[in-house]
């Protein structure tokens, strides 16, 4: 299954999580999302959001693709997201 990339670099908390939630709401169960963020809060907040929202946190890795340094957080949609800000 392909992963959707959400580039939230340059955004500070809570915006990376807001972007993640908005995309998650339009994504089907089983799809994978990859959030790129250089916000130091994301390392804690992405797994915490997954726990609060019943989603599956897959990994946090260093992003070595284009567009500058970041962390890449992979999340699998485990249950349909009904509410997003």
């Amino acid at each position: 299954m392909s992963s959707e990339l959400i580039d939230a670099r340059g955004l500070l908390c809570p915006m990376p999580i807001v972007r993640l939630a908005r995309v998650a709401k339009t994504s089907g169960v089983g799809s994978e999302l990859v959030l790129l963020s250089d916000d130091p809060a994301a390392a804690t907040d992405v797994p915490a959001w997954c726990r609060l929202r019943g989603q599956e946190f897959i990994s946090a890795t260093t992003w070595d693709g284009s567009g500058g340094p970041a962390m890449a957080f992979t999340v699998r949609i485990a249950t349909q997201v009904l509410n997003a800000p």
Partner: protein
Amino acid sequence: MSSLDSDPDRSNSRRESRRSGGYLDAASGTWLNPAAEQAWLAALEQGWADPRRAYHQGRHAALLLDAAREEIAAGFGASAGQVEFTTSGTAALAAAVERFAPNLPADSTVVTSAVEHSAVPRALDRWSGPIRTVGVDRLGRIDPAEFAASLGSRPGLAVLQHVNQEVGTVQPIEQVASLIGPCPLLVDAGASVGRVELPEGWAVMTASAAKWGGPLGIGVVVDRHHRASTGSAGDEWLGRANVPAAVAAAAGLSWIMQRRELFAAGHRKLIAELREQLPVLISDVEVVGDPLNCAPHILNFSCLYVDGEALVQGLDRRGIAVSSGSACAGVSGEPSHVLAAMGVLTHGNIRVSLPFDDCAPEVTQLLQELPGLVRQLRADLP
């Protein structure tokens, strides 16, 4: 609680002005309690001289300092010779570590937790041997067995807070003490003095007078293994002893020790009300910290999809002062290391910590103002 104040008129007018300020950030510091204030003013007149001098003004200052040391020792269940004054809680932790460092083999292990006050890692900068930092669970609790085992074969020193200053979780000090055997246990009681009963089992305890309603600029190290008399003339100060502040710290400590349970009972009810009502009134709120084994005056929670700094500023405009562990609200740009270690949401974070007062009006006001503020901030998201 005005009947408990030694000077009701004065403290009532003071309280009115503070209540209108809606101050709910006691863990960052509180005002001088009435006993501390009176003692300080008296000591400025009677204890201004250098206690190291042999003339009568100096001897008088030395007597006041001795009495303050005695009074503080009583509050910690120690003797006067075991109390050392420092210039802050941070300096107290550094001084406590210094007491052990020279007397231990260079390769002995220090164990501490991931949720200590930032002064602890700074104090441990002076330690040459290995330092192991034990993580916490989602409620902010260390595992005592893991903590003790981390000392390994060359135990040097265990450093653990009693109450967490951000989330209020109480660590199992006595259980840790029984598991680590002869290894000395240094307990940071900065957030617990005057709030909860102090534990047993420690070798050295540190605290800061400003957190118990005493003056700024006074920390204490209580070393129960210390037999000789600490310089009664205030030798621990690099220059002249700050006798008035020490006297005020001691009077403030006695004042709060006599009222601790009364304040704690009132605060527990208010914190329980917040804990129950916040998730009802506001959607997507995570209340963090140990709900059972916790300090009576602290509640920490995070509101999903909200900016912590905007919360602090929005509440300030509505007359309520709180702090936040969110990255955007701090000076470092990093989220609270305590929240990160617990693995809980760091954005939209608020810490409420109740000052030594009847805080019911502030708590009611917070419950009235916060839901609308959170709704507005969520609606205004870009």
